[in-house]
């Protein structure tokens, strides 16, 4: 079981993620924009972060940089519909631990989350 922070501006995306992850026994917290995400992150100290890239305000890439500078040990998984190779390279350089394509598929999400949850 892990504590997971979902950062996504789409309420539907968050609902689907929450349902899948909480049914698998994880504790889920949510943020709808980058700014509140950073605040919630420092208060809640989640084990894993699921991060959308395209959001109003601070972009996902910027959130990723900030997260990695506050807590280098944080596991950050990018969930995005942007499948360009360049984007994947960029987030990897910035320290992302994994990449999930949107629309998401339950199995893929759980496999990735569980692999990090076990490693602790």
């Amino acid at each position, binding site marked *: 079981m892990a504590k997971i922070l979902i950062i996504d501006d789409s309420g*539907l995306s968050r609902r*689907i993620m929450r349902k899948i992850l909480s049914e698998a026994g994880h504790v889920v917290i949510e943020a709808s924009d980058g700014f509140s995400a950073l605040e919630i992150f420092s208060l809640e100290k989640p084990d894993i972060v699921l991060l959308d890239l395209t959001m109003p305000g601070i972009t996902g890439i910027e959130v990723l940089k900030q997260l990695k500078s506050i807590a280098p040990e944080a596991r950050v998984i990018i969930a995005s*519909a942007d499948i360009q190779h360049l984007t994947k390279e960029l987030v990897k350089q910035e320290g992302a631990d994994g990449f999930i394509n*949107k*629309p998401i598929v339950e*199995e893929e999400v759980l496999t990735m989350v569980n692999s990090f949850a076990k490693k602790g």
Partner: protein
Amino acid sequence: MYTRRNMNKLSKVLIIDDSAYIRKVLRQILNKSPFLDVVGTATNGVEALEMVESLKPDVITCDLIMPEMDGVTFIAEQMKRKPIPIVVVSIASESGEVALSALSAGAVSFVQKPTALATERVLEMSEELIETVKEATTISMKALVSQMETLPVPIPGKKGPRSAIELVVIGISTGGPQGLKSIIPPLPADFPVPVAIVLHMPIGYTELYARKLNELSNLHVTEAREGDELVAGSVLLAPAGRHLVIRRSLDNRVTAHLDAKPFDKPHRPSVDVLFESAANAFGEQVLGVVMTGMGSDGTEGSSWIKARGGIILTEAEESCIVYGMPRSVVEAGLSDMQVPLHKLASKIMEII
């Protein structure tokens, strides 16, 4: 994109109704829209056929019960001469059967006329009427005509192994009554899984439509009632005005539940609500099909089904009367395959 061709231009409307009062009210309502221009009114079918020739309207509203030539006869005749989008404006309680015949004859959709045209009731219907008429100007008459000309071919029963699919859910709107006739009747009597459908239709028509569809089909088609069990061979149609929700109980029985909630959906029944409940009850064992219709109902529901590992088919643009709902699903990256109407039933058969 041809399906949106007329959306922002002024469309010419012809009103057909034998009541002078209704003609006046409809003209007032429709002229309120900056996109519609009522160019004429006719009192019966015979007069209307002539006026169509001279006025060349883009869309027609048509009453059903009229002297000289009634609505259904007019629609059939006009479709033979030159297909034009026709919206039926009539009273459900008096003419349910006739309204369905009008659809078979080629009408696009229908709006209920309030029985007593009290001032506030007229205002209630005016927005719906304007939207329906505007929507009618965007439809593909080519697709509608080719659909009316092709008779569905029965499909043989399933040979070979079954897949993991345990439920088929379908969402459909404008062009729905016609579209479903192309995919449900061809399915064989031993179709191995239940089917649940949301069709956007005015209140009062779904029960009648389910009965009509049942007469044409090998499967048992009914309007869904509270607690109906979903078993192979059954096709449940959501009643207009109620959401259809699928539930799995602790003893693994799967039943239909009818609900007024959620209230925040633009449609009731909503395709999103049905699809989400199906994904929650059946996980990856769901096949969702999003067919012709305006708007984007079904896109959120499809993302629930896809997230659970299920399959989504969308009707291809070429056969859609209105390519709206399927387009929205495709653009969200949720469609596994786009299939034209005449191949949809056999594709469903192949997948399950």
